């Protein structure tokens, strides 16, 4: 049996939208959606984060809701096909690095 979670998408959003998008994510994930965007990014890898990232495997119905309902409301959010690109490729293309992993 193949998984229903076959659509992988990487979402990169401006830090200014973090709270709003975490709230929006609770529409799809009532129990934990408010922590969907917590991994920070910046051009230097140092705080403060200028963007946040989410890398998730989605069911078709979930993806359709994101694509058709949520995405049009947040044009500043960038969505990448995680089945085609790795997170490293996405971040390199955007000139961003993970924040806070250094000692």
């Amino acid at each position, binding site marked *: *049996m*193949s*998984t*229903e*979670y*076959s659509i992988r998408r*990487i979402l990169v959003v401006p830090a200014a939208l973090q709270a709003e998008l975490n709230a929006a*994510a609770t529409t*799809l*994930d009532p*129990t*934990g*959606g408010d*922590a*969907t965007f*917590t*991994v920070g990014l910046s051009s230097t890898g140092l705080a403060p984060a200028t963007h946040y*990232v*989410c*890398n*998730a*495997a989605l069911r078709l119905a979930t993806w359709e809701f994101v694509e058709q309902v949520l995405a049009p409301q947040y044009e500043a959010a960038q969505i990448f096909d995680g089945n085609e690109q790795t*997170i490293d490729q996405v971040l390199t293309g955007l000139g961003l690095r*993970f*924040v*806070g*992993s*250094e*000692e």
Partner: protein
Amino acid sequence: MQRRRDGWIGPPPHDLRPMGWLAAGGGFSPAQLAGLVLWLDADDAATLFQDAARSTPVASDGDPVGGWTDKGSGTYHALQATAAKRATNRPSAVNGRGAVEFDGTDDFLTVTRMAGRFGSGFSFVMVMRIFEGQPVDFKRPFGSRVVSPRQAYFDFLLSSTGSLVQVMWADHVSYQQTMVSLPAGDSGHGVLTCVATPGAAMSCYANGSLTGTTSIAGATWGNIAGATSETPLIGAIANGASDIGHCACQFAELLIYNRPLGSAERQQVEQYALAKFGLSP
């Protein structure tokens, strides 16, 4: 160290030749050894769930893993409440046996705090694979720490030199021991062991071979294993309320004992893991 295609490989140690119980099919269970605190077994599909409530079992390759039942003490289940941060079920990742995969972006599972469980030391045995070796730095497949005063009873990190290092902190002083030198990119699966004896030493092993021993005589063990220890994460590390250092990796099995295993015991567990997952010593 040389590496074969099936994992982290060193010269075959004399003490890891197949023993009678293994040749006969084993029958050994990690629970036979006293002090088993945590046992996560990705090859036991009945322990994997899509949700943190552990109500919806995984059914397919690629399903999310939001709950992983602890078969050891039954206390320290690994959980993730946020759907987008759940790990992925890989039921035949290790020579046909199961693993749980983390994406290196935001996936992680949280284990209930183990504060106070390690007053007599600890032993970790991990069957795992890291997809991002050198030159990646400060990625954490597994760890627990507090930021200030910097303390941790385990902090497995990828170093700037391309090694997986167990770093134990005590009041901002670090005690480090390399577990394995990683190749560029995918490491392959291996069995990694770390045994810590308070007031004495911390020793690490890769596929049964000793990779080194570090004195921890100077560490104040009570601070490391005490009540201030942070929540352990798998696939990342806790940094206060945040999760950082997400590592692209797979865990097939994770065993934690609340004491340093003796040499024969450690070999027994390592042999069990190597045989189970079809890995070479």
